[in-house]
């Protein structure tokens, strides 16, 4: 169990869905968010994600994570676009030299809602899916086993490396490394921190490689999973349906866009 991925375990129908199903739906939501032209679609997508979060009983986590990542950007988008959107004619407010334009706010609402929809979908997917399960399913459906293993191993090594980096940062500071002050000084501090981390990691690669080889990493024999992950016909059909509908939507949007160029 990885304590630093956002996965939050709950006993809910969404958590029990096959990881591939959730993954495909996530990709469909993101694709539609990019292809759709109207605010209404973005808000409905956002609404759908929130409903799913309620069913999965992770609403509070979802809201917290989405706000943490997106709040600043959303505020900035409204400020920048509201003030500076090109070609604006309809002023909403004027305070002294500063004017807020209606067109700018409309564009900002559109961009911000799209960003929120995408981020919310991403967070929901992460909250309800275990990385190991997702990779395991992808391998069962044809992903190269070594690639899947490497992805998982990367996700596990990162928290370790970050902890070591923090420790090295403190250790070097306590040995007198200047980490505050002028720009040049701070730049100088960079290599003594990253150096020990990197060289040690690369040298240990050979030992690791021997270790996993000894555990059959390159062996071509078929593997059997310890934990089978549930998948149902219904879910398979749902995945295909979602993919086909999203693809058709994208094609339709492309066609309308191209024909609007020709006209």
């Amino acid at each position, binding site marked *: 169990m990885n304590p*630093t*991925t*956002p996965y939050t375990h709950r006993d809910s129908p969404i958590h029990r869905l096959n990881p591939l199903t959730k993954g495909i739906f996530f990709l469909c939501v993101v694709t539609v968010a990019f292809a759709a032209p109207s605010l209404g679609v973005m808000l409905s997508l956002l609404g759908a994600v929130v409903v799913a979060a309620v069913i999965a009983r992770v609403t509070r986590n979802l809201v917290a994570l989405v706000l943490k*990542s*997106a709040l*600043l*950007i959303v505020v*900035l*988008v409204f400020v*920048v*676009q509201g*003030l*500076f959107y*090109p070609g604006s004619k309809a002023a909403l407010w004027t305070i002294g030299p500063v004017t807020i334009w209606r067109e700018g706010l409309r*564009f*900002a609402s559109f*961009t*911000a809602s799209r*960003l929120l929809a*995408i*981020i919310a979908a*991403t967070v929901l997917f*992460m909250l309800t899916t275990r990385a190991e399960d997702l990779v395991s399913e992808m391998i069962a459906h044809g992903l190269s086993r*070594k*690639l899947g293993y*490497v*992805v998982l*191993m*990367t*996700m*596990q*090594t*990162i928290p370790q*490396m*970050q902890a070591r*980096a923090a420790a090295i*940062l403190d250790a070097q500071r306590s040995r007198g490394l200047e*980490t505050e002050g002028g*720009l040049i000084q*701070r*730049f100088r*501090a*960079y*290599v003594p*921190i*990253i*150096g020990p*981390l*990197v*060289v040690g*990691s*690369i*040298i240990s*690669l*050979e030992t*690791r*490689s021997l270790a*996993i*080889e000894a555990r059959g*990493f390159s062996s071509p024999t078929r593997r059997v999973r310890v934990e089978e992950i549930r998948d149902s016909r219904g879910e398979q059909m749902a995945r295909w349906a979602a993919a086909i509908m999203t693809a058709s939507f994208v094609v339709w949007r492309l066609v309308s866009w191209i024909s609007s160029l020709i006209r």
Partner: protein
Amino acid sequence: MAQTAQPRVVKSGIGTMAWLLVPVAVGINLVGNFIAVSLKLPVFLDSIGTVTAAILAGPWIGALVGLLTNLIAGLLITPTWLWYAVVNVVFGIVAGFLARKGWYSTIPKTIVCGLILAVIGMIVSAPITAYVYGGVTGAGEDFIRAYLYATGKTLLEGAITASAITEPLDKIISAIIAFLIVKGVPQRYRGQFK
């Protein structure tokens, strides 16, 4: 004794060492960025690992490192990283091909590589910044982009101009650090990655 057959080294696919380099290189990218942020440096330094992996193991491993870095950072830090994955992938590919042609053998050549990566970085990331994020990513460059936008430049132009200051610095430093890392890997380990 009957004559023995010539020993054949059959090497197909990607070696175990090359695969194992990926988590370490992704770690270098993420930790590199973490340190840069902790030191409050004006550069991201999130591609050092990509370039290192590309030099040691070729363009495709470099590309994989770039892809995984942004995917995982997108999950662990903030989703803003996700859409820039394509940029990091391109860095891996370009750096890998440059390394194959011997362009990372000396410091001056490495600096040139850094510039090439910087230009490519600016071209590939500007549309993402402009169209996906509406010019706002939460980084310090937002102010520069906002200012340019206010004076009539499009989001795309603003994005390119703003990155013209940080990208070259970022990529040249990253290329040099990658070069130093590769130089620091003992000879006997270096050939095992291809």
